[in-house]
């Protein structure tokens, strides 16, 4: 052994008094301004769409329920939980976040003895960096990983459309549809809001894959009227679209129309693999051929039921044909959807009035069950002085007459009372008829609701104005002035609010702020009522009505008279998609009812 070997361990001791090479972590050292440190999440604006989870290449994110965050329309109630055992702080989750709720702080040190502490829900599990301003945020604007702008839908120019009833929305081309479909992040938040719970991300995906037959199959799983819904659905889905938080929501309605438009009707049976249904020997009568009746008939027919629809009017479709103007929903497209349903063996008896031509009791005895989707066709009156004049009309009556091909009264100066879609429909129809008759438009629509809370779809209001109709919202009608038995106009007063604090209808007016709309014809469009004269007193006794006079049904739309199911506008809506959903659900209920009956 050499002397050096003996001494060398002691030489190590000299380091005891030497400055160390490494330094202690200086806690005060701050990360750079845009450092990608620990996650923050604004829990209020996060909607739990899961796009962060989808994009994460390290599978570091889980979506978990959080106490106190409710699942509701537009919010899954889930929030992202991040596993720092896998995260690499690439910030793709931040860059793709549809609401910009997720961001990274510039904090980068975190010491804990419990490894599970590093799995946490940003924004819910409180952290020291929650209020740190610095760090990585999605730069705005033009830093989106998906398209924020909707592909423009081609339309006829206002001047080309305001004289005729031809369809003015021309539909997407293949390229436009695929481009629009490409903006979808497939979160599926929309599905819960759709009354029919359509497989929206799935059919949008089918468009991206250019597999429109698969798209059609997905549509028909929940909706047998895709041409119709693709045009006039109230598209509640688009209101909750996650992309809509920081951009234009997906044009879900037009994409649905694209799928239906591209599939030729003669191929439907083959694509949908229908036609091999065995008749089960049971019969169901359906009153009314509107969306709920047709939907019930379609799903019942698929299950083997023999369905007969009784329709009061000469053609099928209910409000879709007799309420919605042709320029929004052409008759041949209604026929395409309905004819397919008829091709499955569903029968329609036209011009039959239940209660007078055939009694409800007769249907009860001839069929195993009855579904009624008779809708809201009775116009409601404002009952203001003068409203009983012969030149005061109900919008629904006029729209029906137009669809029946009858000539209606069209005056030079018209005022429409109402701010819903029906009011816009009659306003725009009258504008076209005035244009044809007088070469000019002079129609004014006025509603109780102010512009921001008008119940009509926004585009309806915009398009009405493009067609030179005047929309003047926020006025309550007080009286109709009549001179020498002729209408002079409508007196209104300013409406300050429509609903009280608890959301009940209770309009408040400023009686001093008044206005006079000159008119020689007035149309009331303030809502519709149901006509259930066909339900005989004996049956009516078995049906439960709520304090406001509405029919009470169970979740399958079964009434107290067990054999009678009622759905559609009478129960929910009024709109097409609720009707379709009701009809589908009622079909399931009717199937259950008949089967347990033996």
């Amino acid at each position, binding site marked *: 052994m050499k002397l050096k070997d003996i001494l060398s361990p002691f030489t190590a001791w000299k380091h005891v008094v030497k400055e160390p090479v490494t330094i202690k972590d200086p806690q005060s050292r701050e990360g750079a301004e845009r450092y990608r440190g620990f996650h923050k999440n604004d829990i209020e604006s996060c909607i*739990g769409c899961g796009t962060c989870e989808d994009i994460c290449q390290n*599978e570091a994110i*889980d979506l978990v329920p959080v106490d106190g965050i409710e699942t509701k329309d537009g919010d*899954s109630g889930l929030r992202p939980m991040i*596993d720092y055992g896998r995260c690499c702080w690439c910030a793709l989750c931040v860059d793709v976040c549809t609401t910009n709720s997720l961001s990274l702080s510039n904090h980068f040190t975190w010491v804990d003895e419990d490894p599970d502490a590093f*799995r946490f829900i940003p924004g819910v599990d409180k952290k020291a960096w929650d209020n740190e301003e610095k760090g990585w945020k999605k730069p705005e604007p033009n830093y989106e990983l998906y398209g924020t702008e909707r592909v423009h839908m081609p339309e006829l120019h206002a001047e080309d459309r305001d004289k005729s009833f031809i369809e003015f929305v021309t539909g997407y081309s293949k390229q436009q549809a695929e481009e629009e479909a490409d903006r979808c992040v497939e*979160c*599926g938040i929309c599905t*819960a809001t759709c009354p029919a*719970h359509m497989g929206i991300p799935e059919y949008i995906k089918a468009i991206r894959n250019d597999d429109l037959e698969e798209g059609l199959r997905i549509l028909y799983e929940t909706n047998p009227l895709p041409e119709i819904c693709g045009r006039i659905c109230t598209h509640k889905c688009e209101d909750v679209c996650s992309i809509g938080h920081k951009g234009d929501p997906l044009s879900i309605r037009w994409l649905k129309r694209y799928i239906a438009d591209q599939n030729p009707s003669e191929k439907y049976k083959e694509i949908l693999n229908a036609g091999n249904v065995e008749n089960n020997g049971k019969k169901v009568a359906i009153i009314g051929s509107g969306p709920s009746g047709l939907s019930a008939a379609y799903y019942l027919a698929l299950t083997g039921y023999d369905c007969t629809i009784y329709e009061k009017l000469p053609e099928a479709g209910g409000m879709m044909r007799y309420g919605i103007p042709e320029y929004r929903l052409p008759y041949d497209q209604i026929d395409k959807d309905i004819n397919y349903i008829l091709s499955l063996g569903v029968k329609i008896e036209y011009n039959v009035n239940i209660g007078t031509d055939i009694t409800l009791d007769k249907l009860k005895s001839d069929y195993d069950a009855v579904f009624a989707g008779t809708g809201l066709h009775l116009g409601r009156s404002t009952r203001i002085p003068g409203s009983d004049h012969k030149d005061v009309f109900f919008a629904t009556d006029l729209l029906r007459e137009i669809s029946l091909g009858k000539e209606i009264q069209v005056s030079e100066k018209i005022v429409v009372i109402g701010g819903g879609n029906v009011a816009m429909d009659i306003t725009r129809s009258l504008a076209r008829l005035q244009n044809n008759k007088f070469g000019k438009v002079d129609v004014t629509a006025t509603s109780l609701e102010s512009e921001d809370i008008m119940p009509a779809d926004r585009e309806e209001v915009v398009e009405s104005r493009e067609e030179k109709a005047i929309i003047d919202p926020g006025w309550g009608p007080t009286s109709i002035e009549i001179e020498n038995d002729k209408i002079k106009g409508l007196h209104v007063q300013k409406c300050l609010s429509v609903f009280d604090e608890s959301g009940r209808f209770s309009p408040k007016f400023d009686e001093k702020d008044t206005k006079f709309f000159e008119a020689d014809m007035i149309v009331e469009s303030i809502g519709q009522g149901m006509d259930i004269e066909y339900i005989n007193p004996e049956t009516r006794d078995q049906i439960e009505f709520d304090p406001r006079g509405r029919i009470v049904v169970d979740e399958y739309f079964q009434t107290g008279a067990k054999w009678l199911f009622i759905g559609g506008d009478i129960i929910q809506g009024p709109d097409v998609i609720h009707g379709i959903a009701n009809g589908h659900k009622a079909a399931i209920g009717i199937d259950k009812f008949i089967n347990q009956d033996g």
Partner: protein
Amino acid sequence: MNDIKTKFDITDIIEQRENLSFITIPKEHAISLVTYLRDVKGFKHLVLLTAADWLEDEEFQLTYLLNNPDEKSDLGVRVFISREDATMETAHHLWEQVATYQRELKEMFGIDFPGSPDVDKPFILEGWDDKPPYRRDFDTKQYSEDTYFPRPGRESNDPAEYMKKKLYPDEK
């Protein structure tokens, strides 16, 4: 270039641009060509040695990228070797740093260079016991799933399904 062509069995020449060309040569003549280029043609500097996996052709492609500092031009020498017998003569005697490239190629592609210093020592993958990861038949995702499995207790929810469960559980 003509001089090289007469002396060596060049199978392919690509003149990418004025100062960059690629030539292909059979495996057995490659090292003598590279030596000739270094000692006679002024390509004194080795820029890099790299490989590509042509799985469908069952070949690896080696590229010796050489630089002539006087003429300011680059020349890539390409050699195709079989994937099955993935060995190549070493070139570390020409440039010392080639040994490092060869060690890396051994580890990532499984191409052997017998005689190259430390060629069998792990380069960056410590304790690797799988297929060399740059080979294209190595399934990165599968490896990652087998090796880096999620920690126990993790559970996630699909937003659409979760909303159905909460809001309309009874519907189809």
